[in-house]
Structure formats: C-alpha cells, structure tokens
C-alpha cells in the first residue's frame, strides 16, 4: 500500500503543516469568540448565563464529559462485532447463495442491482 501511495499525488491533509494550520484557525476562532463577549452584550434568560464565558465552558466541558462517559459505557456495553450474528444465524441457517468477496464489494453497486 505504501508503494502505491508513494506514486500518488499529495492530498491536502497529507501535509502535516496543513493540519496544523487548520487547528490554528480553530484556536483563533475560539479566541475571537470569547473576546467578542466583551463587545456584544448578551441577553440573559437563565441565571447560569450570567457567568462570563458560560457557553464556551458549557460546550467544552459538556463534550469532554460526554466522551468520557461514553468511553466508560464501552466497558460494559461493548461486544464483538458478530455478537448477535452468532446467536441468530443458528436459528436461520444461511441461504446457499455465495457471499460477495471484498474485491467484488469494492466495485460499488452494493445495493443489489438485480
């Protein structure tokens, strides 16, 4: 695969510099958005909103908590990919027709063009 890639043209994010640039843009936007709070007077509807930078903090903390809780949920919810298939194919024996190979699937048209 590497050999193939060597001949291939470079794409936008193959260059780590471009990834860095994108990240800097995100950081800059975040900084500007926080600074804007000094300029724009927010209407307050909920008492929590009075806190300076409530939305940035809530968004950041909310997402970190979301991901960490979801990660913890994996410890008791995650099973093998064929967890149900093993159970259910016993009750429904496989039909005789052949399975597609990976190469065939990669051709596209995988929605059974009859």
């Amino acid at each position, binding site marked *: 695969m590497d050999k193939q890639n060597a001949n291939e043209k470079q794409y936008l994010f193959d260059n780590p510099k471009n990834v860095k640039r994108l990240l800097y843009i995100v950081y800059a936007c975040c900084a500007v958005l926080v600074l804007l709070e000094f300029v724009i007077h927010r209407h307050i509807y909920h008492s929590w909103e009075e806190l300076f930078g409530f939305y940035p903090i809530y968004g950041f903390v909310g997402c970190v908590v979301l991901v960490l809780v979801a990660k913890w949920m994996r410890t008791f919810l*995650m099973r093998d990919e064929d967890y149900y298939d093993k159970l259910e194919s016993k009750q429904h024996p496989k039909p005789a027709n052949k399975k597609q190979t990976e190469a065939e699937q990669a051709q596209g048209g995988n*929605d059974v063009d009859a």
Partner: protein
Amino acid sequence: MWMPELPAFVPFFIGALIALVTTGKVRQAVLLITPVLSGLHLLTVPVGTVLSFSFLNFELEVFEVDKLSLLFGYIFHIAAFICMLFALHVKDTLQQVSGLLYAGSAIGAVFAGDLITLFIFWELLAVTSVFLIWARRTERAYIAGLRYLIIQVLSGVVLLVGIVFYAYKHQSINFEFIGLNDTASWLIFIAFGIKCAFPMLHNWLTDAYPEATPTGTVFLSAFTTKVAVYALARAYPGTELLVYIGVIMACFPIFFAVIENDLRRVLAYSMINQIGFMVVGIGIGTALAVNGAVSHAFNDILFKGLLFMSMGAVLHMTGKIDGSRLGGLYKTMPKTAILCMVGAASISAFPLFSGFVSKSMVMSAALNNGYGWAWLLLLFSAAGVFHHAGIKIPYFAFFAHDSGIRTSEPPKNMLFAMSIAAVLCVAIGVYPQALYSLLPFDTGYNPYDATHVLTQTQLLFFSALAFVWLNLKNMYPPELPSVNLDIDWFYRRLFPAILTPFFSLFWSIDRAVRGVFMRGVNGLLGVISRHEPDGILSRTQLSGSMVIWVSILLAVFLILSFW
C-alpha cells in the same frame, strides 16, 4: 386530475402501479414525475379542503387539509423527490415500487382526518417500508426487517385498540386534540410513541435503519418518525410528560452515538436525538414551541436525509460503512465530503444553516415557559450533536487515518440529490422567513439576533475544541469493530436465553407424552392388523355366533327404547 379534493396519496399509488409494469427510462421518468406532479397539485389545494364519505356509520375524512398537515405534505413531497433521484440508478423493482408506496402512505397519514384512515396508513407505512430493508438481501437485513415489522405492526395494533376504546367513549373518530386522560388516549399515545422512538421503545430504529439498502435508509429516515411527530403535534400538544420524554430522547442517544462504529447507526442515534427536540417542543405546546417542533421536523428531513445520503454514497462506492474501516475518502470523494459537511453544519445548527433557525425556537420556548433544567440539558445535547453528527461522521468517513480505499465520486444522480438537499439546507438557514410562512402559527420569531448567533457559535466552536483536545491527548475513544448493547439485548439475547430452555423442556415433555400415546396406538394397531390365522381380524368365526350377537344387539335396542 386537477381537482382539490384528490387525496394527495393517490398519485403515488398510481405511480407505483405504473412503475411496476414499466422498465428502464420510462420507469425512471415515472419515479421522478410522480412527486413533482403530486407536489404541484398540492400547491393548488387550499387549507380547509375535506374529502369525506360514509362507511358503516362512520364519517371517514380521507383527505383533510390544514396548515399543519400541509407543511408535512410539502416536505414529504420534497423528500420523496430527493429520495427518488438519489435511488434512480437502482434497478430493483422491489425498492422502487415500495419506495413510492411508502412515501404515498406517509402523505396519506398526515392528511388523514379521522383515526380509522390514520390507522390504515399507519400500518401501510410499516408494511411498505420493510421491503426497503429486505431489499438489502442479506441475512442480517432479513432478520432485522422481521424485528422491525413486528414492532411496527404492534404499534398499529395498539393504535387500533386505542381507537376502538376512543370511538366507543367519544362517539367520534375525528383526529384532533386527544390529550392524556383515559385508557384510550394512553394506548394511542403509546402507539405514536413506538413510531416516534420514545426511550425504551426506540431500538427498532437503530436496529433496522442501518441494515437497509444504501438508498432505502434515506427513504426510511424521512417518513415514519416524522409522521409520528406530526401525530403527536396534532393530538398531544402541551402534554407535560412529553417534555421529560423529549429531554431523555435528546440526551441518551448521543452517548451511544459517540461509541458506535457503524456510521449509519450513529446517524440513527442522532435521529432519535433530533426527534427529542421536536418532542420537547410539542410537550411545551405554546405556539412558538409547536412551530419549533414542526419546523425542526421539516429541516431534519432535509439535513438528516443529506447525511444519510452521503453515508449511503460511501457505502455504495466502498461497500463499507464502519468508522474503523473508513477514512481518507476526501481524497477521492471530495464533493460527497463537502455535501456531507453541509449536512453536518445544518444538524449542528451553525448560523446560516437550517438547524439554527428551527432548533432555537424550541430552546427559547423552553426558557420562556420555565423549563430551565430542560433548556440546560437540550443545550448539552446540542453540543453533543455537533460532536457526534457534526464532527464524527465527516471526520471518520472522509478524514481521520487513511484507510487506503481509493474509489470515485458516486453516480451523478446521487450527487445531484445531495446537492438539492444541501442547497435547501443553506437556503432555509439564510432565508428562514420562507419556512416560517408555512408554519401553523405566526409568532414573529427572529433567529438572527446578536446574542443567539454569538452564543450558538461559541458553543459549537468550543465543542470542536473539545474534540481537538481529546484527540491530541489520545483520549478520544477509537473506532472499534464492535456491537454496543442497547434495549434490543433484552429481546435478542435475554428473552431467547430464558425462553429457549423453557421451550426445550416444554417440547421434551410434549414429546414424551406423545411418545407414550403413540406407542399405545401402535400396539393396538399391531394387535388388530395381524393377518395370520390367529390375528384378531382373521380368525374364522361361526355364523351362529354372529346371529347371536345380532339378536343381543337387537335386544339391547329394544330394552333401551323403553326409556
């Protein structure tokens, strides 16, 4: 054809019939023209149109038009056209005919003026849509389709029982405000709730939708749940229970979405999350909240359709849909990647995209009506949406690590369908007044005030920052080939595990009892059917003994006849 009373589902059913007997280019033309003609016709239908007839003492209103049903009628026509265009390359009679019938059933359901008509289309939705799952023609799709069908038909049966009670009590089958007050209303509520994917009743959606064909899932995502949202908006606005249900729906699926590997299943979870916003809006029940709920349903059909289309295109071209097996596709599918990101921006409610102008109505209504806690949780899930649908879907499919897959852009019709949806998403975001004029209430709401734009952008950018930070710290859960347990574990694992030993015991007892009985019968037959000279039926008998037996029989008859 151009009479206002023509029910809007009729063109679709006729179109399906024509599609059944035609092939090739003619059928493709029929598939595309049907929603266009029917939609043009619907534009001429005024509010207040009713087509009714009597049937067994009931006044059936097969076609009743008001502003609420008209809004759903319009979006279902747009969705039907986009879906048909997206699936135009498919040469599968089963999918194309059932697709038209399914869209027609959804349109029939939203224009149903009475509960019996609603019930008929409710069941038709289930029966016509399951073929879009079975059309995948894999074993998994077949079993998942069966589960889907059982649950959907169950919803219809519960609805029917509810309707019978309701009609008996109210002496009316008119489909109007019901409200939670008696058994009948609860049954109807639960029936709507199953199709609306209420928590605990939601698993059919995340189970079956990702197993459908690449094009079938786009159809499925547009209609069934939105019909349920419409039904709730008509029958149960202002039911406080819906606020609690909606908030749970908005929050719990995002956790599953973060760890799910199948990207179309991620979208299915995200769909429950979006419906949660609509259900909260209906539960609050004010003009602004209901407007928010139905306009969010309108927008959700477009942006969720767009996301499902982009993932359908990926599946169609690569044969893979798991985050762990994809990545780097932006190199060969740049147009699809951009269209996907438009959908992602819309569902995340970025300013100038469609989600922004509808989701905020529900949020504002929650604040205005004293549901501060609900607002906080909705805000959390709004950040979470961006995290799993806005970033995760495009990131793991088109960027992330390079999977080495080199493919090409999907067929033109797919790109074209996605482009239409993307243009509509942006158009509604830029010019929301067009959508607002179709809404059932006039509230004069303006989404573009400085506070709202700033706070929403802050929320989203810092969610993005959280994603970046977690990734850089290697704390983001990697995509793993896996299955995550959900409620379906109960009926796919636990119940079979309990019931299988029970039934095997039952069958073994049954087998033993029948064995004893059969041995008795066989023994008796063995005795009777022996043909040797000493066999019971082949012995030579004296004719005199027969005469005696006949006279005994006659004597018994004689004696019995005295009684």
